[in-house]
């Protein structure tokens, strides 16, 4: 294989890396370069998306290190799209100095996403995780004027590096038991069916790393501070792009790599394997996330705990397993990411207008800025799972798949937990909407004009959530078609 051919197949990643370097250079050379750097970054991401479209339908390099398949290409597009809509959120953070460096970090994190999504080999996945993680640590701590941002970065870093260590150790155990790092051959080697204790430890440790990435309880402790303290675009990206890619990879690892070791999480018939671990994580996340979110007064913290809960819902699909389960997970995590970037766009707008992001800062948003209020209600109600928004269909798909899975509706208990959690969650989403529409304005209106591009992004995302709710077919059919 020539380098030229390799470059062709890795062109999306290459384009994003080059863009990152260009943006970095421009940011260094030119002071006050926010606008031009944003435009450059957005252009680079668009070109990369074009490059994804040019890729062949199937290719497999170096034993799974770089795999091109319809699924991977689809999620490369989605990750690039999420990065693309994160870029316009930057102006809402007035205090961010060095926008060039910031955007370069964002782009490098995007490369991490692309590597994660595009690989089916454990080492490469680990490298992608680390590239993503290191970039995100920097992005979380980027606001040097805010002590909260430093706290966010530090917590994220400490938890993240510990989790990485676990993952790496887990991978090494899996490698020791199977003699391979490519998911397909791992699956072959492990197909004997029984789970020796060392392998069980390896599986659990590998999963811990991902549980951290998707903020599943009890590995969620970094999330509230990171969501609250990090600059808005960083938080949005941590909540969206990073999560989508992690779910794609997690699904591949457990469904492809550990496929033969599924075990059972059905009630009373728990059997060793990855499935009971994920089922427990899922149920715990749903309950803990939703109940703790009830008590929050800061919207970003509230979103963080709700993210824990949504991580739990999304895991339900993976626990259910199979093609259907995976496609439900992928659909749900995608619409969740879109919704959350939008919600952070609104939070960013409120923060730049009122100087804070507590519930009381949202008071009177309905009369102050009807568009933002309408968008926020679309995002919140979609998260709560109300029609005709994307979250409603997403939950329906997930839960019906879980109900179907296993013999004799063994996952019914998990469906009931998830439905109960979703019932609890409506309360706190309504609290946000009550602040927006019912409460009278208590914060003096400082009247910053909000940035046009950020507003437009927010509106586009809200429209997307609404459209995917009315016509989920547009995404579902693609996801299903891309799964082998």
């Amino acid at each position, binding site marked *: 294989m020539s380098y030229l051919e390799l470059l062709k197949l890795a062109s999306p990643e290459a384009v994003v890396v080059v863009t990152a370097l260009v943006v970095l250079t421009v940011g260094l050379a030119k002071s006050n370069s926010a606008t031009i750097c944003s435009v450059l970054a957005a252009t680079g991401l668009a070109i990369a998306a074009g490059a994804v479209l040019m890729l062949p339908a199937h290719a497999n390099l170096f034993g799974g290190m770089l795999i091109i398949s319809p699924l991977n290409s689809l999620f490369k597009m989605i990750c690039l799209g999420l990065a693309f809509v994160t870029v316009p959120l930057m102006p809402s953070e007035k205090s961010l100095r060095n926008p060039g460096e910031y955007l370069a970090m964002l782009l490098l994190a995007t490369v991490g996403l692309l590597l994660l999504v595009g690989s089916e080999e454990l080492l490469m996945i680990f490298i992608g995780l680390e590239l993503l993680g290191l970039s995100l640590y920097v992005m979380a701590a980027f606001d040097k004027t805010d002590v909260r941002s430093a706290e966010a970065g530090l917590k994220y870093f400490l938890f993240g590096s510990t989790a990485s260590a676990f993952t790496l150790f887990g991978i090494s155990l899996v490698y020791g038991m199977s003699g391979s790092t490519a998911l397909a051959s791992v699956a072959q080697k492990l197909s004997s069916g029984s789970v020796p204790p060392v392998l069980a430890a390896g599986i659990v440790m590998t999963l811990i790393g991902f549980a951290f990435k998707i903020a599943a309880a009890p590995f969620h402790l970094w999330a509230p501070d990171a969501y609250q303290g990090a600059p808005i675009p960083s938080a949005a990206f941590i909540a969206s792009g990073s999560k989508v890619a992690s779910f794609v990879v997690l699904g591949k690892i457990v469904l492809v790599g550990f496929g033969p070791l599924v075990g059972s999480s059905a009630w009373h018939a728990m059997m060793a394997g990855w499935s009971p671990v994920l089922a427990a994580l899922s149920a715990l996340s749903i309950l803990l996330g939703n109940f703790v979110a009830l008590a929050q007064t800061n919207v970003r913290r509230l979103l963080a705990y709700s993210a824990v809960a949504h991580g739990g819902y999304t895991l339900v699909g993976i626990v259910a397993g199979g093609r259907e389960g995976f496609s439900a997970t992928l659909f749900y995590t995608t619409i969740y990411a879109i919704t959350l970037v939008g919600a952070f766009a609104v939070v960013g707008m409120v923060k730049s207008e009122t100087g804070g992001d507590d519930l009381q800062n949202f008071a009177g948003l309905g009369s102050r800025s009807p568009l933002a209020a309408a968008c926020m209600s679309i995002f919140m109600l979609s998260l709560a799972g*109300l*029609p005709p928004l994307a979250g409603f269909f997403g939950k329906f798909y997930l839960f*019906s798949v879980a109900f179907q899975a296993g013999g004799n509706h063994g996952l019914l208990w998990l469906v009931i937990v998830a439905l109960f959690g979703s019932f609890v969650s*409506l309360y706190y989403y*309504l609290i946000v909407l009550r602040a927006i*529409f019912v409460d009278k304005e208590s914060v003096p209106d400082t009247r910053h004009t909000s940035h046009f591009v950020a507003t437009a992004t927010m509106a586009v995302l809200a429209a997307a959530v609404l459209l995917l709710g009315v016509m989920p*077919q547009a995404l579902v059919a693609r996801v299903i078609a891309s799964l082998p």
Partner: protein
Amino acid sequence: MIAWTIYLTFAGAVVLLFLPRPFAKWIALATTIAGFAISLAIFFRPDVDLVHFTTIVRIPWIPALGMNYQLALDGISLTLILVTGLAAISAVLFSWDVNERANEFFFWLLLVVGGSYGVFLSADLFLLFLFYELVIVPKYFLIAIFGSTNKEYGAMKLTLYSFFGGALVFLGIIAIYVSGGSFDLNQLSQFQFSPQLQGWVFPVLFLGFAVLAGIWPLHTWAPTGHVAAPTAGSMLLAGIVMKLGAYAALRVAMNLLPQGFQTWRNSFAVFAVIGIVYAAAVALRQQDLKFVIGYSSVSHMGFVLLGLATANVFGVSGAVLQMFSHGVIGALLFAVAGTMIYRRTHTRDLDALAAMNLRRALPFAAFTFVVASAASMGIPGFSGFAAEITILIGAWKTYPLAVWIVGAGMVLVAAFTLRALKRSFFDVDSASANAEPPQLEPITISEKIGAGLLMFATLAVGLYPRILLDRIQPAVEALRFFK
């Protein structure tokens, strides 16, 4: 053509959001009148098949999971669409004085109406559930923004109860979909679900829907919600929203899972009877006029549930007729209490009202309240009588004991209604009998039209119930569990 009730209502909701404030109420009025006119036109057309649940629209929607955009119509749904239109028009007329944030108000109001049309017309289970859940949030905003007494609490309670019911329904629908492999209600009604599945899915589904119909002991959202809501909100709640639950319980739970229904119907009949008597007894002790009416709604909806539980043609037809009747009467009662009295006197406390000599200050309101009370008590000649007698005939065949208990309960209904009537308008014994009536704003034209419309409806159906029963009964007979 009937599908246009849905489209027009949603279109009206969106349009009025972008028009200047003075247009809002006119658009809302035009939209609701159009919806009602369409349903009336269908009602009087002889060539429409109202016996079977006839599909009128079917478009593939999410083929990957087998969902269709499918609407259908029969006599049961048409009856409920009629009452939706009636309640919607009068709710708009009784909101004529809403000026603050009027666009928003009528937007939420039309969403409730449009979603309800959608539920009554859906022939696809997923679509039905979508419309059903769509109604939840507009109710929250209608009450939390525009309501009165304890509005945020009442709104949240009502919303959470609805959503709790929704979660049960969600589970039931998933179970039906996974086992039946389809969302098409007509197709599913041919499908034999396993008895074991029916045994647990039916109560989950029925209870989930019945929360919205105010089944005892999950009824407590109704009085608080009604009291907190603005007049139009209570009118829609009593007139339409409570019917969504009862209708869906009939159309989905009972029609798809007949064996589960047979197993559980006795328990639900007990719940219904307790609800009728208990709510009437509680209403007797209330000081707030709206609480009296709120509990009376629970009591009247108990009749609907009892009628459904009888599982014979009389009982079920009577239940559907009672849904219509209570929709009209409940809306009328709340209109009197909320707009005619409360907006003028700023109190709903029965003692305070007794001291006001309202009979002379607001003679039209007194007249309306007398008519509404008579209808509510079940005086012959009003729709309430026709409906309740049909239900009781049905119940006599299956639950003779229940008829005796409910008969005693009806005395309580008469007692609390007469008490409320006397205290609010006719308290001649009090010292204020000869006092000068307070100077109150006279009843407006729009209020008179709205009240007149509802009074006409209850009288017309009361005097000639067959106009509805002739369309309801064949449709009920065509349901699965009568075959």
